[in-house]
């Protein structure tokens, strides 16, 4: 059912874990199935230096979480923001139709983490 790439990421997920002093955290629950993902990012000079995740979810959820961290590390925030669920799914050689919503989880968590970073930064600057 899953592509070889999905299975490879499921078996050897990259960047599992937490970042203690993360600059942005995005936590998201999938409205469709109830699965949960938490994404941590470390940002320096507008660039994502590191990303880690924790996911409670199906095989596709774990693979897309892993893939999204690979895709964003080294990218500027603007570049990272352009990553959509389709980008993630394509990078994994596609997902079965019934599993497309799983890639929402990763994309949404990423956008939320960036948003979190930006709002924290704004607060800091106002001080």
């Amino acid at each position, binding site marked *: 059912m*899953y592509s070889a790439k999905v*299975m490879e990421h*499921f*078996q050897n*997920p990259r960047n*599992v874990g937490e970042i203690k002093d993360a600059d942005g955290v995005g*936590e998201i629950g999938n409205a*469709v*199935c*109830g*699965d*949960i*993902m*938490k994404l941590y990012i470390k940002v320096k000079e507008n660039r994502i230096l590191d990303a880690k*995740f*924790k*996911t*409670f*979810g*199906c*095989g596709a*959820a*774990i693979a897309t979480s892993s893939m999204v961290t690979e895709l964003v590390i080294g990218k500027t925030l603007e570049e990272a923001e352009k990553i959509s669920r389709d980008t993630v799914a394509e990078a994994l050689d596609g997902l079965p139709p*019934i599993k497309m*919503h799983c890639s929402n989880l990763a994309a949404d968590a990423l956008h939320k983490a960036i948003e979190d970073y930006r709002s924290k930064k704004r607060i800091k600057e106002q001080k």
Partner: protein
Amino acid sequence: MKKVYLDHNATTPVHPEVLEVMLPYFKEKFGNPSSIHGFGREAKVALEEARERVASLLGASSNEIFFTCGGTESDNLAVKGTAYANRKKGLHIITSKIEHHAILESCKFLEKEGFVITYLPVDSLGVVDPKELGKAIREDTTLVSIMYVNNEVGSIQLIEELSKITKEKEIYFHTDAVQAMGKIPINVKKLNNIDMLSMSGHKINGPKGVGAIFIRKGVRITPWSHGGHHERSRRAGTENVPGIVGFAKALELAVRDVEDQNKHLKELTEIFYRKLTEAIPDVILNGDLNQRVFNTLNLSFKGVEGESMILSLDLKGVAVASGSACTSGTLEPSHVLSAMWIAPEIAQGAIRFSFGRDNTMEDVEYVASILPEMVSRLRSMSPLYAKEK
């Protein structure tokens, strides 16, 4: 790679003895039982012998056994057939929240047709309280359909008590016994308040696409497939003779071996459960260790989602399911576990281990030996399970 099949509630392999008795009916004895020539008569004899065998194994008479294409068709016929045949008497039907989709979807269809359905709740162990049935019965109730054994958690319903209540009120009682056959001795002479009972071949080491329904003499039922006068006009369509012959044989073996199998399966699953709970913290049993058919164990590993467990086990050659096979294409947590008030994130992690006659202690040891590492790997990725634990 070692392969271990622990998904017998989804389907079972055909027993070699069953296969053997079926083969001639694909080959030289291929006749149509409705034909009057020798080929037809030969098939007819086999068909009627199978019917008599099934009837005697159940304590029924042979004109109360109707062959179908499986549990789903038997359930559809029971629910819709009695609903329509008795609709002048009333439009109310009672079932439970944990039925198989064959029942639930038939009920949904009937709701659209103007019937009224009550879905009885279950307790946290997946059992319907007969008092709830008593309260739900109305003047216009015509049918109560409660499954004998639940396919996801293996809970056994109090069929004798439930059917006694309906008898007193002159309401038909149907039970989906698909998951009970071969696990619980069933005799409709003793359980004389059961009016209809559904069976399926492929859950008892018989072939797929064949089953039967017991319909007690006198039950008013409308057929759902129209055509020739097969199955005494209850179910049109040329009979699946090899399948039916195989089904009867499978039932014979299942009934013959029920005690031995129960002993075997109880031992396997209890040791399996003990090994897992010793090696893995936070294992949750969905259902009850004693009030269940002994082949089924439904477990959640706290903080771990079900599909990722199934994939991990599959990579090691172990076949299990989350919930029922038919619902694995959907995303909602199991309706059975929800009805048992199991928290969504626990229900999402539920894994059904269903053992069968060919499983061995070696299988138990193998699966119990690979699970702890799998669970801890997935837990280390989970935001719902704290590391310090």
